[in-house]
């Protein structure tokens, strides 16, 4: 009997527990919930700070193209749809060592390089309290306006940065150090950057050489939607004996660049000059690109030219072998498929070679020299070419 009473009481007690809870004031509940929210926020913040320390980012371009002949401008031929030439995969990791120091690694695999995996960048960067940033390691040679993100197709409107400026044999990376500082007054921002280093480079004809004492300076002035830039660099190239009989050559680079970007119009232009001792060609290149953004659809036109400026030094060579002259036009459109996916169509025409090879690989032949080594010659087979290409760019 007692047992039953106890049972009944405890059942009653149990039944009263939810009641008791219902009676706790709403305020208490709100406080409990607030504490939970705070705990969740703290979790979120600590989880984020871990994610902050290691940051993975990636980019990829899958491009396909075909040309109307075998001039191989940009690598394309007329016999097949080629997926390799402009396709690239990149993966970047930024490790935050502390608040002001980080390590960056970028791995790159290019279709045109048979998808060989390359360590593109490997550097440490430290920002001092006064805002000076010091970098050291294997770095991108920042000689052009968009050198730093030249592989990231998503970051620019066209399929490939103008070959007349960006693909004339200037090395893309170096091993050394870089110091930069940026300061602003009123609406102006000024960036100054200086670098020093060396690297092993490949010169036309597949010869390897040493680039030494590379010294460069880059200045940028930003105001409202405008950016003006100046880039200067010099280096000595040695180890070329086999092909030229000269042991060391001095090379110099001067570039001017301009950008206007107001969200609708993007206008960019660069004029560059390269200068190398002796018979190796000096060159002058330029381009201007206009792109307009109709909310997600951006047509563009790029006009460019490349010419050698010291042809008189090579009069003894047959067929203007090393001389270059050409004009290029690219017309295309970029569609924003999703916020991190872009689709691009491009038509590019290169002509007005004026009897030169136009730096078309299809026009390049080699002649064996009696004393050993080879001399590049112009076969003159192609005087014009058209390249049609489609690309999908993603970032992740």
């Amino acid at each position, binding site marked *: 009997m007692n047992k039953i009473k106890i049972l009944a009481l405890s059942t009653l007690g149990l039944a009263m527990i939810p009641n008791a809870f219902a009676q706790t004031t709403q305020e208490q509940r709100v406080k409990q919930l607030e504490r939970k*929210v705070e705990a969740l*926020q703290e979790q979120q*913040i600590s989880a*984020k700070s871990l994610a902050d320390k290691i*940051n993975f*980012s990636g*980019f990829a371009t899958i491009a396909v193209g075909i040309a109307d002949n075998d001039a191989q401008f940009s690598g394309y031929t007329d016999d097949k749809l080629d997926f390799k030439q402009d396709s690239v995969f*990149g993966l*970047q990791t*930024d490790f935050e060592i502390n608040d002001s120091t*980080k390590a*960056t690694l*970028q791995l790159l695999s290019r279709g045109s390089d048979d998808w060989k995996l390359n360590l593109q*960048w490997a*550097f440490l*960067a430290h920002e001092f309290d006064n*805002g000076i940033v010091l970098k050291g390691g294997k770095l*991108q040679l920042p000689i052009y306006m*968009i050198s*730093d*993100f030249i*592989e*990231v197709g*998503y*970051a*620019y409107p066209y399929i490939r940065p103008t070959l007349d400026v960006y693909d004339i044999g200037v090395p893309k990376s170096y091993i050394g150090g870089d110091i930069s500082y*940026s300061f*602003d007054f009123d*609406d102006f*921002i000024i960036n100054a950057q200086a670098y020093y280093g060396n690297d092993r480079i490949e010169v036309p004809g597949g010869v390897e050489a040493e680039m030494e004492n590379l010294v460069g300076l880059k200045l940028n002035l*930003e105001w409202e939607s405008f950016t003006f830039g100046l880039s200067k660099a010099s280096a000595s190239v040695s180890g070329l004996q086999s092909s030229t009989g000269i042991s060391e050559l001095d090379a110099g680079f001067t570039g001017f660049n301009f950008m206007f970007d*107001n*969200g*609708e119009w993007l206008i960019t232009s660069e004029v560059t000059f390269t200068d190398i001792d002796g018979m190796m060609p000096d060159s002058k290149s330029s381009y201007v690109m206009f792109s307009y*953004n109709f*909310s*997600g659809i951006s047509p563009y036109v790029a006009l460019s030219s490349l010419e050698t400026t010291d042809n008189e030094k090579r009069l003894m060579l047959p067929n203007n072998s090393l001389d270059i002259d050409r004009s290029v036009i690219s017309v295309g459109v970029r569609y*924003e498929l999703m*916020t*991190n996916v*872009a689709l691009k169509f491009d038509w590019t025409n290169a002509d007005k070679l004026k009897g030169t090879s136009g730096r078309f690989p299809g026009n390049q032949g080699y002649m064996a020299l009696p004393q050993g080594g080879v001399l590049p010659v112009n076969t003159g087979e192609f005087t014009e070419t058209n390249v049609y290409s489609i690309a999908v760019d993603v*970032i992740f």
Partner: protein
Amino acid sequence: MRLNILKIMIFGLVCMTITANAAVVLVGHPSLSDSFTTSTAKKLYLGKLKKLSNGQPPNLIELPAGNKLKAEFHQKVTNKDDAKLKSYWSRLVFTGKGRAPNVLTSSALVKAEVSSNPNSIGYIDESEVDSSVKVIFKP
């Protein structure tokens, strides 16, 4: 009586519509002494402003792509749409020059983050401003 309740409800709805149409504002932690102009807010949201007045780097908060408040803020401040912003930040991220802003999915989360972190800056609708955050710029 019924009619009165109805009137109050209608009044409330009207108020909500009015406040929902209020403008976007930039908010920071109440301890922040910075105040921005269109030009400095633009620098801030394009990653060009390295330090706040407290000496710390700003922790920028964005709303997700496609969000109306995000579109309004950027239309008034940076004049860039979602794709342009993504492309712009990809240039900074892949050069190691910057980190893309953190994305939070709602104004409530933005407010919670801003009120709990003195370096965090975000934008919310003016109607959602309360004492937990400070308006530092009204575009």
